[in-house]
């Protein structure tokens, strides 16, 4: 039994229809996100927008962000988000094998570029040893990414981990 009962689909705010369709086309989040967050309609649109913009839009490779999203969801013990996949990333060539490497020992992998490894390290350190993300770490990041791209990555990591942390506590959801 879910600790927070999802709203019936027909109770989702009709004003969120475009967002639900957009999310369905991408493959994440599925409509359960809207049925949970729909308990607080004022939050749903803003939080979905933050998740979507930071993940699917922007200048950083969406495939890389998809690997990071799955890695963070696993770290947050959130089977809900960890079990979803971006169709856009898959269509762009991202496969499960690459996601597995990105979620594991990416440092030892020969296919990830130095820039991709920095981004994966950024996500990996953020909620384990954030003190290691210091000036020298950001200086290295700036050799690979613009400041705008680094902010895009940092906000993306923060938004998604925060929501994954919350959803991970909602035991009893499909996939849990």
């Amino acid at each position, binding site marked *: *039994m879910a*600790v*927070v*009962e999802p709203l019936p689909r027909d109770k989702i705010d009709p004003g969120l229809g475009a967002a639900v369709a957009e999310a369905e086309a991408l493959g994440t989040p599925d409509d359960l996100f809207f049925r*949970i*967050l729909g*308990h*607080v309609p004022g*939050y749903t649109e803003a*939080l979905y927008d933050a998740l979507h913009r930071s993940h699917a839009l922007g200048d950083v490779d969406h495939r890389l962000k998809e690997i990071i999203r799955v890695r963070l969801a696993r770290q*947050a*013990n959130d089977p809900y988000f960890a079990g979803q996949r971006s169709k856009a990333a898959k269509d762009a060539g991202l496969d499960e094998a690459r996601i597995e490497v990105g979620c594991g020992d990416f440092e030892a992998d020969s296919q990830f570029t130095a820039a991709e490894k920095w981004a994966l390290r950024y996500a990996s350190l*953020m*909620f384990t*040893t*954030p*003190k290691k*993300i*210091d*000036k020298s770490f*950001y200086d290295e990041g700036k050799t690979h990414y613009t400041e705008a791209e680094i902010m895009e990555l*940092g*906000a993306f*990591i*923060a*938004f*998604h*981990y*925060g*929501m*994954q*942390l*919350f*959803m*991970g*506590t*909602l*035991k*009893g959801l499909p996939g849990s």
Partner: protein
Amino acid sequence: MTEERIDEGIERYATSVAFTDAEKAALSYAERMGTVPETIDEAFYEELARHYSVEEIVELGAFIGFNVGFHVFFGTLDFYPMFTPDGRLVSQEESRSIYGDKPVSHLSGSVAGANPEAAE
């Protein structure tokens, strides 16, 4: 709201007489989310549900998750508030001496668990 109440809500809320049982449950929700999320189980949600509606629980949970994520990110950016507690515009260097080296709000006590490195 005073700094003393914020401090009490961070460090001593569980034994404080200044908070209601509902407020203590919400503060515990926040503390657990950032430190031991695996302890937020069905029994904990049942306790929360004694004080809050489903709508309020989702509101709290999303708010807390969002804040845990974003505060950790901002913490890595080494930024400090532009203003002193009494409203004076200051440089980042001066702000750091106020909020960082000798923080107005806490980096010790129970909140240290939210960022173990802060206690080092």
